[in-house]
């Protein structure tokens, strides 16, 4: 029995046994088979696309009630977020600002560090060391965010209180520092790829004109790789804006806009933390739940926008390196 099946599976390899002309039945079968296969593979591939579309649809549908019942102007312009009060108020401004605020502060730390590390890895350090350092940097991305969160609460927060005299250690700065560390692998990895994709010619031409290594890096390499670097920064920002656990633990979750605006020692609340923290209590089909979904729509729109921008710059970077 097993011999026969073995023979059967081997048969197609012996092509010369096949007749040159297929019967109409065989022809049809082959035709249908190939199309069925294609259809199946198409279906498999499109599940991920479908998943994205369905998520978008789901989140929008769930927020429609809220957006039609509640004033959108108040939702976007008010700073009062009191979902469980007798007359609930859903003002998301402080929460939206909190998300952007903490992401930008994170970028202030992560971008210079990330670009410098990327240039260092591609232009300065030896290939062998680069091949050790880069995977280690990428391991940073593999650490679970709750581990970062515990570090933020138990180590960074008391340290900040003692060192800087902040009244509270779980604040915008704390969350931003952790987010910066979490965004670094993305930024370094993408920026390094685009910087090293520039090739030797550009650098050698620069050296040939008498430029020093520093001049070459800052006046030739970084400007030439700007598309890829911008894409890296935006991807890093997406990482920061979408992160939930760390900001939920490290930012303090106070619904306020820092005042004065540069005071990073005040605690803030982000969109992701609000959704994660309140979804469990919000009753099904309530205005509160709708409000959380509306925040979800905002978050999706924001990350989609950032994603499109980063795709644009990445494709430009690809074109640029293709020409060189």
């Amino acid at each position, binding site marked *: 029995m097993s011999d026969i099946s073995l023979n059967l599976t081997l048969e197609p390899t012996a092509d010369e046994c096949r007749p040159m002309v297929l019967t109409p039945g065989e022809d049809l079968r082959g035709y249908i088979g190939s199309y069925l296969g294609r259809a199946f593979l198409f279906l498999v591939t499109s599940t991920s696309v479908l998943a994205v579309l369905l998520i978008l649809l789901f989140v929008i549908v769930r927020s429609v009630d809220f957006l039609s019942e509640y004033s959108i102007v108040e939702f976007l312009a008010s*700073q009062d977020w009191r979902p469980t009060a007798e007359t609930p108020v859903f003002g998301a401004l402080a929460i939206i600002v909190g998300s952007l605020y903490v992401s930008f502060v994170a970028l202030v730390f992560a971008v210079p560090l990330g670009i410098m590390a990327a240039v260092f890895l591609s232009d300065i350090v030896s290939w062998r060391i680069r091949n050790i350092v880069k995977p280690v940097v990428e391991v940073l991305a593999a650490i679970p965010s709750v581990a970062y969160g515990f570090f933020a609460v138990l180590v960074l927060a008391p340290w900040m209180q003692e060192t800087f005299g902040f*009244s509270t250690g779980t604040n915008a700065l704390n969350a931003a520092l952790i987010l910066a560390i979490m965004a670094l692998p993305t930024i370094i990895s993408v920026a390094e790829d685009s910087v090293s994709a520039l090739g030797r010619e550009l650098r050698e031409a620069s050296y040939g004109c008498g430029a020093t290594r520093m001049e070459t890096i800052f006046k030739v390499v970084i400007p030439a790789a700007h598309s890829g670097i911008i894409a890296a920064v935006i991807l890093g920002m997406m990482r920061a804006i979408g992160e939930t656990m760390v900001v939920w*633990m490290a930012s*303090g979750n106070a619904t306020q806009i820092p005042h004065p605006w540069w005071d990073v020692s005040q*605690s803030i609340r982000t969109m992701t933390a609000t959704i994660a*923290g309140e979804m469990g209590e919000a009753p099904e089909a309530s205005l509160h739940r709708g409000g959380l979904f509306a925040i979800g729509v905002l978050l999706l729109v924001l990350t989609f926008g950032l994603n499109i921008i980063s795709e644009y710059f990445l494709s430009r970077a690809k074109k640029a390196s293709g020409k060189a």
Partner: protein
Amino acid sequence: MKKSMVGIAMIALVMGAANAETLQIDGSTTVGPIADAFAEYFKSVYSDLDITVKKTGSGDGAAALVDGRCDIATMSRFMKPDEFAKAVSNNVLPVAHVVAMDGVCVIVHPSNPVKALTTEQVRDIYMGKITNWSQVGGSSAPIVVISRDTSSGTYETFESLVMSKQPMGAGVEYVNANPQAHARVKTTAGAIGYVGLGFLDNAVKAVQIDGVLPTRQTVASGAYPVSRPLFMFTNGYPKLGGMVHKFVAFYLTERGQELVEAKGFVPLTDY
């Protein structure tokens, strides 16, 4: 076709009842952990018992008992008059079993000289009206106000017993677990927070509320203001010896009291 399906469903129902006793529990997120712990113990003792514990909120628990969707409704408050009336008109006679006491301690950093606060002062601190410790007899330092997340039972207790419907201020920080609230207060000199009595230790200082220090005795007797009884409601007094009776009377056993204490609540014994 329809008839046969109904028949099959009835057979399944009868067989289910014969094979495994079911116990439906629905209600408060605060009492939920106690019900969970009890259920776990019951499952280990009675292997063919099927218990489900839902935590949808006290109001939903009451509604479920009125509609006959659950055997036991766990509630962190007594039934409201209209809930009670609705139950009676539905031929359900709610009987309350107090299974434990819930005490929420207001805690500050051990170095804080403030020893006692009134309920009003605590409320004003959480509303953002009082922002400096010097306003309540402490040294001049800004108050870092720490609350549990709004979906927790501890928050619910605190909110109903201290805040009396007043919204918390914008500067209040939220943490998502009792140990985390404890850790934040332990490491922050100007912090005020609140945790269940079970999480109190020497690393933080509990303040007197209206002159009463939270202890097992003051919470169990109700002398401490931020304490309340936790209920399980049944339809009539359960049949003696039945599973429902065993469940709602379990808090009286030594094992039941241990479980209540392990969840950070106070058993009803006052000795």
